[in-house]
């Protein structure tokens, strides 16, 4: 199979997991993306994307302890794998190369 690539939303979620470190489970991940990007994230989208990232090997997960405010349900904590970190690095490199020299032009065009 060819090297798995990263969709835009997957990219956002993967970055959120990375940022959160030890505290990365569903709710904070959603909040992180919502607060930083201003877009709304549905539960299903977050769940499916996290699963997909796990299938692709970019993150791994383990079950945490149940808490009362979750109705006694366990949290699933995520952690970025080395493959995930490599992918992030690669995406950043690719994107910043593509962005080179565009910024001032883009701001003018939007007017």
């Amino acid at each position, binding site marked *: 199979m060819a090297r798995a690539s990263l969709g835009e939303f997957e990219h956002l979620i993967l970055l959120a997991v990375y940022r959160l470190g030890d505290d990365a489970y*569903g709710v904070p991940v959603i909040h992180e993306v919502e607060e930083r990007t201003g877009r709304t994230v549905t539960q299903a989208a977050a769940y*499916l994307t996290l*699963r997909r990232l796990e299938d692709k090997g970019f993150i791994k997960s383990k079950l945490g302890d149940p*808490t009362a405010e979750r109705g006694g349900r366990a949290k699933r904590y995520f952690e970025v794998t080395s493959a995930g970190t490599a992918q992030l690095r690669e995406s950043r490199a690719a994107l910043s190369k593509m962005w080179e020299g565009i910024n001032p032009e883009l701001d003018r065009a939007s007017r």
Partner: protein
Amino acid sequence: MKRPRLAAAILDLFVPQDGRDEIHGDLDERFLRVLQTKGQTRARAWYWAQVLSSTTTFIAHRIRRPRSPKVRSTARQPKALELPRSFWADIQYAFRSFRRHPGAIAVAVFSLGAGIGTNVTIFSVVDVYVFRSLPFPDPDRLVEVYGTMPERGWNHNPLSFPVYLDMRDQSRTMDIAASHPEDKNIAGGDRPERIGTIRTSWNYFEVFQVQPILGRAFRPEEERDGNHRVALIGSGLWQRRFGSDPGVLGETILLDGEHFTVIGVLPPDFRFGLTIPEVWTPLGITGDESRGTNRLMAVGRLRPGATVTQANADVSRIATLLAEEYPEVHSGWGAGARSLNDFVVPVEARVGMVITSVAAALVLMIACTNVANIMLTRATARVREIAVMGALGASRARLVRHLFADSVVVAWFGGLVGILISVAGIRWYTSLVPAWAPRAEEVGIDGRVLVFALIVTTLTGIVFGIIPALRNSLPNFSAALKEGGRGVSGNRGSRSRSALVVCQVTMALTLLVGSALLVRGYFSLQSMDTGWRKENVLTFRVSLPQSDYQDNEAVVSFYRTLHERIAAMPGVESAGAISHLPMRSSASTLYDVPGHEAPSPEQRQLAEYRFIVPGYLQTMDIARLQGRLFDERDRADTRNAVVVNEMLADLHWPTENPIGKSVELWGETREIVGVVENSIIYDQVIRPMILLSAFQEPRASMSFVAHTPGGQRSLTEEIRNHVHSLDPNLPLYRVMSMDEVVRESRQMETLMAKMMAAIAVLALMLSVAGVYGVISYSVAQRTQELGIRMALGAREAKVLSLVLRQGAVITVIGMAIGLVTASLIARGMSLWLFGVSPFDAASFGASIAILLGASLAASYFPARRVAKLDPLEVLRHE
């Protein structure tokens, strides 16, 4: 505060198994946070939004992706899955394009939701009464047995005791039970209480196949008077009076002064008929009951192999034999049997359900028209896109599917909104329905109702989706590509849109007229001239148990004293009493006029009769026309006197003075001493009425009326004290104002008026949205034309009137057709119209005015928008 449970359940259906805990946990946690920051309402809305969007995502995910990833990599997809997957792409496309036109789609979804919600609400009621069987074992084997007298047009009469016993003994097709409800005083407890009781034949529970939850049912010998002092009590009473103590068996209860031994307790929801009994006692047959007094409601259970038709023939055979044997009482009488389901839903309710179902169907059609219009507009806007797809080789089927995806998405959301609306609708219905209405507690959302909602949603999706899809999948590709998508205005597309709106206006007017009539009927009921005083009249009822008041003197002296005391109370202008208040029920009897004998028994006249305590007529403001009212001269030892109403007097003595003439009632002649004006008795028909003096011929149960010009709140307790001082065991019941009596008697009409008014408001909103949609679309299409007109000097007013005229023409055509359909519907509704003609000009006028006004307003806004534009801007824009 918990998360919305229904939403959580919906989500559960679609969540992947292994993610259930995680997703619910996350959602609960986030819900709590929203709840703390934004409050309950916002939090619930947030939760619903999460569920709806997540559900769609999960469904999408499942269609897009095969369950097992291995299948995908190693083998080609099964052919069957290809269609849904390409269709899914269409649906996603639909979603994306909806995001660009949220307004139109919101209108479509709300329209559909309103239509589906209305239908689901009405269906949940109709389902109970029409499609669901009665809550007894083998309900299809139960039949109602009734008497008939075709010559008088009586189709469903109760039976007399002897006739019932003859039927039960002689029937070859069924086992017949009988019952007779009556309210009784139950003594003891905190305060004496009036409760519903029912006297039944010994086999009543056998016929219904209901087992007591405690103790036993009646034995055959307990049916006879003398052995009949046993009782089965309802679960409610058992709980209330005995704290659900199993030791209740063998206890005695005091009903109207008689002791009854409790032998059993019935299950909580056992009930049949229009009353809510709490105690069941045996009939107590003495053998002296009259053959002519018809009081028993008879229910039969078909024996194995027998049919309703056979049962019907069976009882009518018995009736023929009885008519031969007792011609003086039974000649002219027949009998019949019909399925018990037919009995439970009386004709008014049936007509009411048909009216509301038709109205709901119309709302749905209006909604579908709206959605179809929006879809047509969208499809027209997409002509180029379709043409490109067609030119690139997409098959017609593929194009139809592409266009149809829009409708599927709208239908799906419309269905969801519809279910939510019906949840509210059903709650509203149950809050309005009177307590005595049978089976009201069975109304609610269940699997059947949801299946119905699903069917309606699917059908509507097909109805409003398929036509635009078929039409627009066949454009002339090259023409569409050449025209640049602009030349399509003014062609068949806009004509068919206008035709749809004409239909919509037609249906809306029909509904508006129908509900205007019902609402008018409702108000005319409020302000109806009943012929008696409604305001400031306090009423209550007392019933003297025979055991404590054994002779007439005791009864008369009680009522005389109570009447004197109440009339003497400060704040009471006058007082009286009557055996049955108006609006409550009918009590009628056959009578004769000496010298005017009827040629045959079937032609004897029927009159309503009431016993009154002097003062009743003055208190109720019913005017004396001739002669005198009852007074001290009318006692047990003087000649029996009656007061009749004008109608009866005119019937027999149109030219003579009726005073001093006599009528014969129950084998005794009575002298007419006075004539009073006609008044409403229990429905809008004025009937002959005979009033008798309750001091001359006393009755155990009387309803008091007191005219209290200064209000009545403080008086109730004082009256209670007076009654208590006369007899501490006597409950005072049905304490209410005359206004309330009237209102209560018309609860069903009120319910009907409110439901139809709600439906009509929906219909109005939906059709106004339709008119608005069509006009604003056509204005958008004509912007360039209108711009040129303005550039050439057309004034703003001219442009306005051009557009308004278009709206007016559509509306007027629709209303012209609507008037015809409304007249037809109105005639069918006459049974529900109280004091209103089905062709009431005010109702028609108001409906026309409202609809015309609303659609002109709906055309005005788009018209003004374009008239305000700068013509240069408009032209440059093209």
